[in-house]
């Protein structure tokens, strides 16, 4: 089963995946590439087509054209073999409100062909609930749960079957800052143990802190797909903030790449040497350091190009 995935290392691969609703191209010729072991951040504003893409990967929505391969097998054709190995959270968690968290998980487990038996199931459910910080002994109906607890329950449902791939749509929705951190730690730990994670979000910071790869969707088109390290690698520029802009520009001449307010971007490899030089020339330096582009800037640039 894993052979196809192993040969090219792709856990998710789509070719010109397209979904049209009438005239509207909700998802337009998207070529996703997610490799085993990645934490892939799928970025896009609300309504950019993220959720539709996720639904197509899971076989909930049928593509108008194009192909999707998940775990090396075509979706939705191979959903019976593919889906049991995927844990997912699609557009918010859902549970039967009149039942407790563990009853909900028990029912969900029992519906699959890979269901587990009595005691084994209890252990599985208990572990999943503990993993996300819920109390397995809690008998209260889910109706009484807060948004954050529901989100945790949704994650527990995704984790329960020990998936090789997690597809999570906005996993930190409704969580408080501490909860976000807990869940992030949990996901990174799972990733370290070999789980590939595909998470969609509209929060740049979340992606920047967790992901190894990033894909950016805008109006249904994938406008950027890159390794995060490549995007954020040093640019060979040094950012200098100084009140003496003019003197500084005159001094450095050709090596100044750009001036923006009181900040200069200078082509230089060693900020320390540049600093010593400027201070030696009596230029007051407020701030100096290697210039890294923020993900936000990169996304904005990519959006401007399209």
């Amino acid at each position, binding site marked *: 089963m894993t052979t196809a995935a192993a040969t090219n290392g792709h856990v998710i691969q789509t070719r010109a995946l397209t979904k049209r609703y009438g005239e509207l191209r909700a998802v337009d010729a998207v070529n996703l590439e997610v490799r085993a072991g990645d934490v892939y951040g799928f970025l896009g504003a609300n309504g950019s087509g993220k959720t539709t893409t996720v639904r197509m990967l899971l*076989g909930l929505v049928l593509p108008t054209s194009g192909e999707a391969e998940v775990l090396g097998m075509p979706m939705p054709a191979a959903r019976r073999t593919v889906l049991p190995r995927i844990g997912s959270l699609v557009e*918010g968690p859902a*549970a039967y409100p009149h039942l407790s968290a563990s009853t909900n998980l028990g029912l969900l487990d029992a519906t699959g062909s890979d269901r587990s038996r009595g005691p084994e199931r209890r252990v599985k459910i208990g572990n999943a609930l503990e993993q996300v910080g819920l109390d397995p002994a809690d008998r209260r109906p889910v109706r009484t749960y807060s948004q954050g607890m529901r989100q945790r329950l949704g994650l527990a449902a995704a984790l329960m079957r020990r998936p090789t791939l997690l597809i999570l749509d906005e996993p930190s929705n409704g969580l408080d800052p501490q909860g976000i951190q807990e869940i992030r730690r949990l996901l990174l730990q799972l990733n370290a143990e070999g789980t590939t994670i595909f998470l969609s979000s509209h929060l740049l910071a979340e992606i920047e802190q967790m992901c190894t790869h990033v894909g950016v969707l805008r109006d249904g088109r994938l406008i950027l797909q890159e390794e995060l390290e490549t995007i954020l690698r040093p640019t060979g520029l040094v950012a200098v903030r100084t009140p003496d802009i003019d003197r500084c520009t005159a001094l450095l001449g050709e090596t100044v790449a750009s001036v923006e307010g009181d900040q200069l971007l200078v082509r230089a490899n060693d900020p320390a040497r540049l600093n010593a030089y400027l201070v030696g020339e009596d230029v007051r330096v407020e701030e100096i350091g290697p210039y890294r582009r923020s993900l936000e800037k990169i996304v904005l640039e990519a959006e401007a190009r399209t």
Partner: protein
Amino acid sequence: MIVVELIKMICRPRTWLIIGMLVALPTLVAILLSVTDLGPRPGTGPPFLSAVLSDGTLFPLAALGVVLPLLLPIAVAVLGGDAIAGESQTGTLRYLLVRPVGRTHLLLAKLVTVVAFVLLAVLVVAAVSYAEGRLLLGRAPATGTVSLSGSTLTQQELSWRTALALGYVIISMLSVAAVALFFSTLTRSAIGAALGTIGVLVTSTVLLGLDAAAALHPFLPTRYWLAFVDLFRDPILWRDVVRGLVVQLGYLTVFTLAAWANFGTKDIDD
């Protein structure tokens, strides 16, 4: 999957609330009858009701006759309408489908669950009304039960005829369930699907009272619902029962296939 759906149905307070409603109506009727001793004249009113004052053992059938025209179909419409649309409303549908549960499989499980509900409801109504008939209404003549045609039925005959009647009621309700299930795959609103189904039944009943629609009568879903009464004539009057079965199976097939065709390729984007 079917087992899970059954458990979900049994564990749902709503199921028992509806059954309670179904039991309440015949109970009210039994009390009124026993207090006033005023049965409908023979040949009028709900079937069997005129007979139960002298023979309480017939009350389960009378109770079914009371529930069948209105309450039971509404209950089935509510449950069937909730089947897919309800899961869609709570958002659990997408998690069932990525579990994965096959779509056809899910539809079948839902249909079976509605049948199980009808069975459960009919049995509870029959059991409770049997007790009520025994306690509140007339004692059966020692010679055996009198059929609608005046002859006497042995206990054995009465048993298998009752079983047939139950089967007939269940098949009638199954076609209602199929219609409800179809509407349930069309909309995200469980109430909408239930109302749509009730709308179909009301339309059918209205047309039945309209002579101008006489040509349509044999094809209306509610036309032969009460034909189970004919099973208690001597000899059994099969004509309407058989026609009723054909009509119900027709509705069942058409609407189940329509539900399947619609749901099988539907984009789940709730």
